[in-house]
């Protein structure tokens, strides 16, 4: 399978593109040009990789999950520990890269949207480091369920704008960030947090996150002498999955599995799984699978995890689905909570609720694996931020 997409117009097959109001075209073209110039620039890459090593703490380990492996008693389970990154998730890889683009472009004001708050924290973190003015858009429903991250962003000097329009979640935060960008186009850099949005964002965010996949190639070789049989990652917008999948697209014998949020169950319609139960449409500047009704209105989503609560998905995932290079499955909130506890108890790791979706697929996958096989789970983030939600969900008295 080839991995030289997107094409010059920003398409992965029929997906992607630049479906934006005219005012944004200038900024997207400017960003595309800048990125084209810098991505093979030695100084730029040296600075990016130095920041990843010294500020983020890369490479993240590939860790053998001994008790989980014994529990399923089939393939060996390995964990790519993005939860150990500075700020606690894979999101920092992208923001470290994009803030460098902003710096090279001379932009003084940074904006971002956030769902679970991890991208907001990661953006506020890199903006603080460069002393840039930072504004984060966050749905009011997410502000409520991720209050710890809101406080972290404020500590880092960012201004958090609560968004009340629409469903008051990630999709609406993205709308509002785009409106800010249209208005402040000349001095503002928009750090999109996933492989979504108009071209060139899906490509840029993927490339900065692909460090995860490239490390995994070397680590797999060192740890078990070959490439993994399967790689599993949760998919909301899909940046952690795209980052770990990308370097493996051309290795046809490595199975790529994305796990979406089935919420209360795909059959109930109350979920956030466009690749499993959506149709192609255009949202936030790109064509991709989308949860929508027959009039083309975007449907509300439901998921236990704020970071996956999004009706769209990155266009490259839609392409990987259609060409059958990756498989996309979905797990329900109940299955996720079960996996969340299992990982805590068996491995001493507190995964984010988003990440717990990837673990929740093990029950289905592992009985079909063999003992001499190796699977890798991308542990996209840690779950400290979710403790309030879990306490609420399980009605625990502290």
């Amino acid at each position: 399978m080839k991995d030289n997409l997107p094409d010059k117009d920003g398409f992965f097959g029929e997906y992607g593109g630049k479906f934006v109001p005219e005012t944004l075209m200038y900024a997207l073209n400017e960003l595309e040009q800048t990125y084209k110039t810098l991505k093979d620039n030695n100084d730029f890459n040296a600075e990016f990789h130095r920041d990843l090593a010294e500020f983020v703490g890369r490479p993240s380990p590939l860790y053998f999950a001994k008790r989980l492996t014994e529990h399923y008693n089939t393939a060996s389970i390995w964990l790519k520990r993005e939860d150990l990154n500075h700020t606690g998730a894979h999101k920092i890889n992208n923001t470290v890269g994009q803030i460098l683009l902003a710096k090279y472009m001379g932009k003084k004001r940074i904006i971002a949207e956030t769902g679970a708050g991890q991208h907001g924290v990661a953006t506020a973190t890199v903006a603080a480091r460069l002393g840039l003015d930072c504004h984060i858009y966050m749905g009011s429903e997410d502000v409520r369920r991720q209050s710890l991250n809101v406080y972290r962003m404020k500590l880092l000097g960012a201004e958090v704008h609560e968004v009340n329009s629409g469903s008051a979640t990630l999709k609406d935060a993205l709308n509002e960030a785009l409106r800010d960008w249209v208005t402040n186009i000349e001095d503002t850099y928009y750090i999109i947090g996933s492989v979504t949005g108009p071209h060139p964002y899906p490509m840029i965010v993927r490339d900065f996150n692909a460090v995860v996949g490239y490390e995994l190639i070397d680590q797999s070789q060192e740890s078990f002498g070959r490439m993994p049989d399967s790689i599993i990652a949760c998919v909301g917008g899909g940046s952690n999955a795209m980052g770990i999948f990308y370097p493996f697209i051309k290795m046809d014998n490595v199975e790529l599995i994305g796990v979406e949020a089935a919420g209360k169950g795909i059959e109930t319609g109350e979920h956030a799984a466009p690749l499993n139960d959506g149709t192609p449409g255009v949202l936030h500047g790109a064509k991709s699978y989308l949860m929508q009704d027959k009039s083309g209105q975007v449907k509300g989503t439901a998921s236990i995890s704020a970071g996956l609560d999004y009706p769209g998905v990155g266009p490259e995932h839609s392409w990987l689905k259609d060409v059958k290079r990756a498989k996309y499955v979905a797990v329900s909130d109940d299955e996720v909570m079960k996996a969340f506890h299992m990982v805590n108890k068996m491995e001493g790791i507190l995964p984010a609720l988003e990440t717990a979706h990837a673990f929740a697929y093990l029950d289905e996958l592992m009985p079909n694996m063999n003992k001499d096989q190796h699977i890798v789970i991308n542990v996209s983030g840690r779950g400290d931020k979710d403790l309030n939600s879990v306490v609420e969900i399980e009605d625990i008295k502290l």
Partner: protein
Amino acid sequence: MKRIEKKLKELSQDNQKAFVGYIVAGDPDLETSLQLMHLSVDSGVDILEIGVPFTDPIAEGPTIQQAHDRSLENETNLQKIIDLICKFREKDTNTPIILMGYINNFLMYKDLINRSHELGVDGVLVVDIPGELSLEDYGIDNQDLDIISLVSPTTSKERVKEIVKNSTGFIYYVTLRGVTGSSNLDGNEIEQNIKYIKSISSIPVMAGFGIKNSDDAKLLSSFSDGIVIGSSIVELIYKNSENKDFHEVSDYISNMKDAIR
């Protein structure tokens, strides 16, 4: 001759500027929209721009966003909007009508849009399709429909050339960096940019986004072929939706029409 071209020709023969008025179909409800369309034309609107509501209208400010939400609560969709336009055409066959909306809704009704000219629609303005792209590539292909494109203060001269090439009817010049209903117009910049469009093409240019009062309208009409007003009309409709007495809307439109005479 197409209806938009004919209307603009008549206005220019009378030495008049065009007034393009925007309302959101289905706000407060479709029946009232029909009434408001006729009322707008009677008060001075020359071309009707009918907003097609979308759940995620990223180019709109709060006033029009909320109108979209209200309309969607009534389950307005493109089929119902075309039905509305058919009803309007029973009494008015002269006023050009443009559908303004977002690509995702249009894609769901491709066949209907391609037949929409015979049902009374004269043009489409798809906010989130860049003007140098061809709507034909997305299955919207009817030579009788005018394709209205946006040009903004940030559009490069090279792209203006491409956009003008793919546009018919008129060019909608976005007068500011921002969403609909914002303020702070820069008259000088607008004048220069419209002059540039006029220097490379004979297509009429309408100016819109951010026109609030008669001074704005007068200024912008002095270097364009007409003006587009949306948010202010939508706001007045909302304000009077309860009692459905829209004389304030009518007065506002007449005043604006007077300002650009």
